[in-house]
């Protein structure tokens, strides 16, 4: 409480101190605000009748050779009921024969907002180069394709609304190349995720670890490294320290003990580092991205279609059905790095560290594995992307599986070998498995550890905190679920950012630019919130914005969870080996089994769909 009052009072004081600047800024703000309001009030939003009474979801149907029938919805977006005629594939389109509308497409009457869903399938054999079925109409100048290739096909879904012919819906059959569909996007995503998020965040964490711990411990922490650009001397709260660190590690003497096993000694850091990166393949860092229609608001079905790889790509490097098993398989490999480092160093302390690491890994993998079973029971999938989607439609994992969350968090921290579970390192006891390492080899262990921290945060976010989503389904594929939600979000985020920005501005000279930027972003949020108040804006947002917002939310969650891990790491004392073991085997393991049993019973009782008896 005292903190809040002190922050408030300091805010007030700062406002007083910067009165001049703030006054002019506030006058400007007020002017802009008034302008916006007058514009908004001058032209009150009118309920313009949409000439098209029905929206199709997805807006365009795309098929691949292996596509199963796709669900298509027709939604009544007008204010009066409409009657939908028979849905068919328009026979005037070139490839209408290749597509078929399912039996569930029954004509009927749609109340306002009601949705009619049916399936459309494709006979991909029709599009096979020299198959039995030839195209009815051959496009002019179109080259015949080879026997084992697919040609592209085009058709149109047709139906009537209130007896009038609706514009229909384009259907496409395409056969993108493997490179175009899988490899290219994957490479881009790897680059985006690794180079754009993980490595910067891991590097930042090395700084954050020091800065945050410093702030927790009433110290200043790193603050002297500076970027000299022209005449400017950017110190940025010491963030450039991680660059200096990297340079230092690269240039440090790379020392190999005389009796060490050279090959394994050299390989061990890679064994520790690479699995930590590879597991990121299954982490979804956002919903699907549709290439062609980034600026339009898209429906859930559009996005789902993109997530299936049709017309877009999921923001996940590899969509593996058994994603979590993949994670267990790969993450365990990191232990080899630790064990090999300890063994090959030819140092008793190192091998003690390696033994501790191996034992710890075995004990806590089990607990982690069993913990996730709960989530599996509830959401019925092991695929992370699907898990997130499932949480969007029901509740977050933390609400449905609170015990599992605590257990997973604990075990995950143990997996990352950080305090209070940093026994393999145990700097004050055995100094750890990397005692003999120096330079970039040590740096790889170091960085690998931080990447594991990020991964564990990402997993926590994915499994329990709804991935890229906002709580209560606030953010849907098309935008916020309602204007109220949008306004809530905008005002909340805006106020938070503004306060943070002002606070950062006031911490010192270095913070002014940053703080002002953050505050500006916050104020923009507030403006948009006001705008939304008057216009109800927020339910229809361009696709790219939604995706971007999702990624930012995901990144924010991961970042916060990293911060929490750091907070824990710098707060708690370390376990002793026997206590660690007993916690793992006698604490976490029984609890996770109990969690499974409890979840199973509850699922059996409460979720009729999962109950085979019902």
């Amino acid at each position, binding site marked *: 409480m005292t903190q809040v009052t002190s922050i408030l009072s300091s805010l007030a004081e700062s406002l007083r101190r910067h009165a001049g600047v703030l006054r002019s800024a506030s006058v400007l703000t007020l002017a802009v605000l008034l302008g916006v309001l007058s514009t908004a009030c001058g032209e009150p939003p009118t309920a313009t009748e949409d000439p098209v009474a029905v929206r199709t979801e997805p807006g365009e149907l795309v098929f691949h050779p292996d596509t199963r029938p796709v669900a298509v919805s027709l939604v009544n977006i007008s204010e009066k009921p409409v009657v939908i005629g028979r849905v068919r594939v328009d026979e005037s389109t070139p490839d209408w024969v290749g597509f078929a509308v399912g039996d569930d497409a029954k004509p009927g009457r749609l109340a306002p907002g009601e949705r009619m869903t049916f399936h459309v399938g494709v006979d991909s054999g029709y599009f096979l180069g020299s198959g039995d079925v030839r195209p009815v109409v051959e496009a002019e100048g179109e080259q015949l394709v080879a026997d084992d290739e697919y040609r592209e096909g085009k058709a149109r879904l047709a139906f009537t609304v209130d007896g009038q012919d609706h514009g229909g819906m384009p259907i496409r059959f395409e056969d993108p190349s493997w490179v175009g569909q899988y490899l290219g996007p994957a490479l881009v995503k790897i680059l985006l995720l690794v180079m754009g998020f993980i490595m910067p965040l891991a590097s930042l964490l090395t700084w954050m670890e020091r800065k945050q711990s*410093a702030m927790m411990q*009433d110290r200043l922490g790193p603050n002297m490294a500076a970027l000299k650009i022209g005449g400017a001397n950017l110190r940025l709260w010491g963030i450039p320290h991680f660059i200096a660190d990297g340079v230092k590690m690269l240039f440090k003497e790379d020392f190999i003990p005389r009796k060490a096993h050279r090959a394994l000694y050299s390989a061990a850091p890679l064994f520790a580092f690479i699995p930590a990166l590879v597991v990121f393949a299954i982490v979804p860092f956002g919903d699907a991205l549709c290439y062609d229609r980034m600026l339009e608001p898209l429906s859930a079905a559009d996005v789902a279609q993109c997530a299936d790889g049709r017309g877009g790509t999921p923001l996940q490097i590899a969509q593996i059905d058994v994603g979590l098993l993949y994670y267990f398989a790969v993450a365990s490999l990191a232990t080899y790095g630790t064990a090999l480092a300890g063994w090959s160093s030819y140092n008793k302390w190192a091998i003690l560290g390696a033994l501790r690491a191996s034992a710890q890994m075995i004990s806590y993998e089990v607990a982690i594995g069993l913990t996730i079973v709960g989530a599996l029971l509830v959401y019925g999938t092991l695929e992370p992307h699907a898990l997130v989607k499932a949480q969007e439609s029901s509740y977050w994992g933390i609400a449905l599986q609170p015990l599992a969350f605590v257990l997973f968090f604990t075990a995950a921290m143990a997996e990352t070998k950080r305090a209070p579970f940093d026994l393999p390192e145990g700097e004050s006891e055995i100094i750890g498995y990397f005692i003999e390492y120096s330079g970039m080899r040590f740096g790889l262990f170091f960085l690998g550890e931080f990447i594991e921290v990020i991964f564990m945060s990402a997993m926590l976010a994915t499994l329990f905190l709804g991935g890229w989503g906002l709580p209560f389904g606030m953010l849907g594929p098309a935008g916020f679920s309602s204007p109220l939600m949008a306004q809530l979000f905008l005002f909340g985020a805006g106020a938070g950012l503004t306060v943070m920005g002002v606070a950062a501005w*006031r911490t010192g000279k270095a913070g002014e630019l940053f703080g002002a930027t953050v505050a500006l972003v916050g104020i923009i949020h507030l403006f948009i919130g006001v705008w939304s108040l008057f216009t109800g804006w927020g339910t229809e947002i361009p696709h790219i914005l939604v995706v971007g917002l999702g990624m930012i939310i995901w990144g924010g969650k991961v970042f916060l969870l990293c911060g929490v891990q750091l907070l824990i790491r710098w*707060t708690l004392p370390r376990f002793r080996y026997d206590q660690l073991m007993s916690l793992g085997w006698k604490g976490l393991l029984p609890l996770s089994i109990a969690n499974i049993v409890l979840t199973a019973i509850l699922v059996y009782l409460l979720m009729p769909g999962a109950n085979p008896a019902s």
Partner: protein
Amino acid sequence: MTISVKKVSLQRTTRDQIFLPAILEGLLTTARHFFKNTFTPGHGDVETIRYGEPGVDVKDYYPERFRGVHRLMHREDGSVRCVACMCCSTVCPARCIYIEAEDRRDDAEKAPRSFVIDELKCVVCGFCVEACPCDAIRMDTREHWIPTETRAEAVLGKVELMSRGEQSVAVQGGLGASYREQAPKADPRFTHDPR
């Protein structure tokens, strides 16, 4: 005014057994420090002396009695006050003061030809100041000896030591009769006066 004996102990409770409440309490404590230090001007409780920051004069942090870099005081004519009596080099536990005497050929008779202090050897005990019978050497510069690139830079000669100096309060041969009135007890310039 009594000195008594008290038993101190700590009993475990169930709350302690389940880890989480205490951990949360700890997290709140550290988080409180974190937020206070991060978001209040001047970094809240952080009281680190910011050596080397532009605009920070570390002298402000040092108390009046701080023992810093040595300096040599002057006479009225600007020459060195020291008469090379070797008291400081004798009392120095680190043997870091090297003095060579020479004849001054005036009433002061004696002066240091060279007066060298190796600041790297100095243990900053302040005994040289206490031992000086002429108010010639002082450590009240409130200057911390900063690291240097070479050892030679840390060896201060007479000129460097005198460059920090000012006129001494002691005069050759004393103030003369009735000196006790002339040099009042409370004069802070008569440093190290315990009475």
